């Protein structure tokens, strides 16, 4: 299974479309067995969708996300846990423990109010 997290230093990037780095974690039996950083020059949202799809990413954990890009990712079969905030390691840890809820980092919304799904 592969999980992608756009990052800004050690934090999840504020916005998926504008992030400069996406880290893709390969996970086996709830353990990270490999991780790879992808530096992104293009600011084309579709390039990011293609990257995740070409890398066969199963789940994207991200901060802000344009609603259409989220639709596109879901339509491509990628599970999206959006509008979260915090450190990348902590978010990944919570995800692996099944404790990560979409929308937790979305101001003005209750935790879980963010979209999540494929």
């Amino acid at each position: 299974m592969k999980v992608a997290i756009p990052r800004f230093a050690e934090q999840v990037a504020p916005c998926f479309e504008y992030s400069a780095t996406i880290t893709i974690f390969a996970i086996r039996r709830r353990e990270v067995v490999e991780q790879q950083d992808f530096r992104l020059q293009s600011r084309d949202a579709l390039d990011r969708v293609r990257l995740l799809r070409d890398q066969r990413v199963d789940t994207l954990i991200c901060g802000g996300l344009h609603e259409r890009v989220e639709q596109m990712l879901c339509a491509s079969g990628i599970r999206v846990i959006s509008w979260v905030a915090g450190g990348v390691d902590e978010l990944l840890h919570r995800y692996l423990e099944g404790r990560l809820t979409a929308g937790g980092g979305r101001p003005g919304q209750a935790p879980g109010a963010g979209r999540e799904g494929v």
Partner: protein
Amino acid sequence: MKSGWGCKGPDVEAHDPQFVETILNSIADGVFTVNREWRITSFNRAAERITGIPAPDAVGRRCSDVFHADICERGCALRQTMESGAELVDVPARILNNRGQSVPISLSTAVLRNPEGALLGAVETFRDLSTVEQLRKEIGLQYTFEDIVGRSRAFQKIFALLPDVAESDSTVLLEGPSGSGKELLARAVHNLSPRREQPYVVVNCGALPPNLFESELFGYTQGAFTDAKRDKPGRIALAEGGTVFLDEVSELPQPTQVKLLRVLQERQYETLGGVKTIQANVRVVAATNQKLVDLVAQGRFRDDLYFRLAVVRLSIPPLRERREDIPFLVEHFVRRFNAKRGKSILGVTPAAMELFMRYGFPGNVRELENLIEYGFVLCHDRFIDLRHLPEDVQSAVRQTAPTPERQPESRLDRAEADAIRGVLERAGGRLKDACRELAVSRTTLWRKMRRHGIFLQDFHKPYHS
């Protein structure tokens, strides 16, 4: 909504918080302050409106977690200001509002210092440029995937294909009824493709007389016919390097179909009257409101051209078959007409939305757009209501309103209805006596009588009998 201007962090000083709050909340531009840890310490009312985030939820958070801006990572204006002390003015940026919609803004920043000159944080003012951008889009037709509105299954399929379709150079065939948004999708395909900086040329095949079609599409050479005084480039030449959109492609005359096939197969053509073969570097996106397969079967459209056009086929169903998209389309058009007409309508009433959800929309999305525009003309309130919508649409919905279907009666139902009729007969239509005999309340008996279509007056005995 309570403003969070009073929710100050310890670093922000104000001589009279109430006074400052009143002033800042009266400003049309968003204003917020951050402390040295980038945490928001105040957030005015316009900032709430532009971001969709209430001040109490924004205050205390890192500004990047509230604004999700394109400059957060690659050139934070507040950071530059705090580090250099210099004010920045009219910096263009994009933020995401709390609904995941991109909002273009122009921002300015300045540092905040206490009376001793120590750095407290910074202040940012930002202006919502959505209206300007919307109008620019209307003029320049610079639509992207952000402008494709749809959550239905049909659009999920389109969204799944769009990243590949945009990247490739393949010919695309868009199928869908009139007014379903084929041209918008065609523009989005062009604007997302590597050809986006090159021309996008529209040819409405249905609007051109057949005898002019060839010269319009391929151009002509001086002397090709009586009035050909000089060379004229065709639409394919005008679209060189870019995209040519052939709307209503089913209307293409047969001779032109052959020439277009050659363009698609060999990337070559000749102008009318010309002898020189010209190389064509265009991507073709075609649209049709008819089933091209049927026209092929009838011999009215070349099968080889059909297969060349339909390398990628995207189908947009009629609006009545994707009603779940209607609320999103309504919201989209309300936002668009607010920008165009300078109004501040918030949406439509539940009654108006119900009308839209039940209407057949023979004119598809274009008709919905026209209805919203009609509503904008008549509506001077905050929400478009039924009274702001055309009467013919309302009467069309009334005429097609489904009548409750009578369920076939079960044996139990029949037995119950017979029992009630018998008791009412014996009681001479006196409800009180019937209720006592059946051991049910008046309400229950009324409800059951209504369900079985039993009328009390049928059991009243004339007083003289």
